[in-house]
């Protein structure tokens, strides 16, 4: 737990700098794995005939699923599966992280067979007091998801709480 967190000029310099582009795959197997992980029973997320009967090209992404980051040993983050180097690192020295919130905006449908190209950047830094963990650094990250046709299909903003 940190007594006092300071947002330095060096940390601010990271704001808006785009990360390495990373590929997220959406496959029938990955859609099923996600839907199963959440506990869906709706056959549209598991069975292609049901998905097509409901009007989709193939199994649709369940809400909040935006493909699985491809995993390459040594290049991927071992814990979160995405790229290891998500742009210039934020040198805050805080070891613990909690999730603060997530917001997704959709611009088109995403189905199995799509390949998404993802970039992200740190959009905001702030400090918040928490009763249980003391001071926390709030890092807002914005990610943009572009499909194989060059269309931006989704944007997601997430807040990491570091303490």
């Amino acid at each position, binding site marked *: 737990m940190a007594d006092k967190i300071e947002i330095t000029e060096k940390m601010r310099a990271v704001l808006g700098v785009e990360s390495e582009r990373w590929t997220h795959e959406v496959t029938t197997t990955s859609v099923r794995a996600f839907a199963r992980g959440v*506990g869906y029973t709706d056959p549209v997320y598991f069975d292609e005939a049901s998905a097509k009967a409901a009007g989709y090209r193939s199994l649709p992404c*369940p*809400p909040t699923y935006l493909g699985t980051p491809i995993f390459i040993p040594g290049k991927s983050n071992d814990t979160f599966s995405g790229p290891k180097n998500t742009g210039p690192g934020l040198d805050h020295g805080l070891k613990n992280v909690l999730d603060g919130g997530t917001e997704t905006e959709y611009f088109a449908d995403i189905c199995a067979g799509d390949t998404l190209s993802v970039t992200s950047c740190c959009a905001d830094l702030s400090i918040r007091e928490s009763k249980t963990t003391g001071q926390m650094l709030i890092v807002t990250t914005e990610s943009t998801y572009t499909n194989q046709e060059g269309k931006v299909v989704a944007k997601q903003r997430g807040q990491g709480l570091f303490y």
Partner: protein
Amino acid sequence: MPLSWNAFDEGSALPELEKKPGVTQLVKYAAGGGDFNPLHHDFAFPQSKALGSIIIHGRFKYAALGELVSNWLDHGGRIRSLSCQYRGMDLPDQPMILGGEVKRKWEENGEKLAEVELFAKNASGKNTTPGSAIVVIDA
């Protein structure tokens, strides 16, 4: 049956969804979502020990709110935006009730839209994951 525009009004409640994710469900979610943070499956992980337990992925609760909305729409529309905040930690093997209410229903540029407010309540009735969504209804 796919949700139709005439089937709900402002103030209508979404059919509730009950979940009680255990460790195995969290492991399935970790594999499906690609988030292998040990805080969600390893009781010996230092942060789990400090908190007294592993905790449910915030993103699992977010996805569960998505499932709630998806079940309500039943493919009679699509989600335009979905957000939530993680205000409290949830522990495995505890019941949680997910639900929501239509706050606003309107037409704009030829589209039929609705805004819903969402919640995920823990066993003591605390809403640990307030959220909201905007959906577009087909017909």
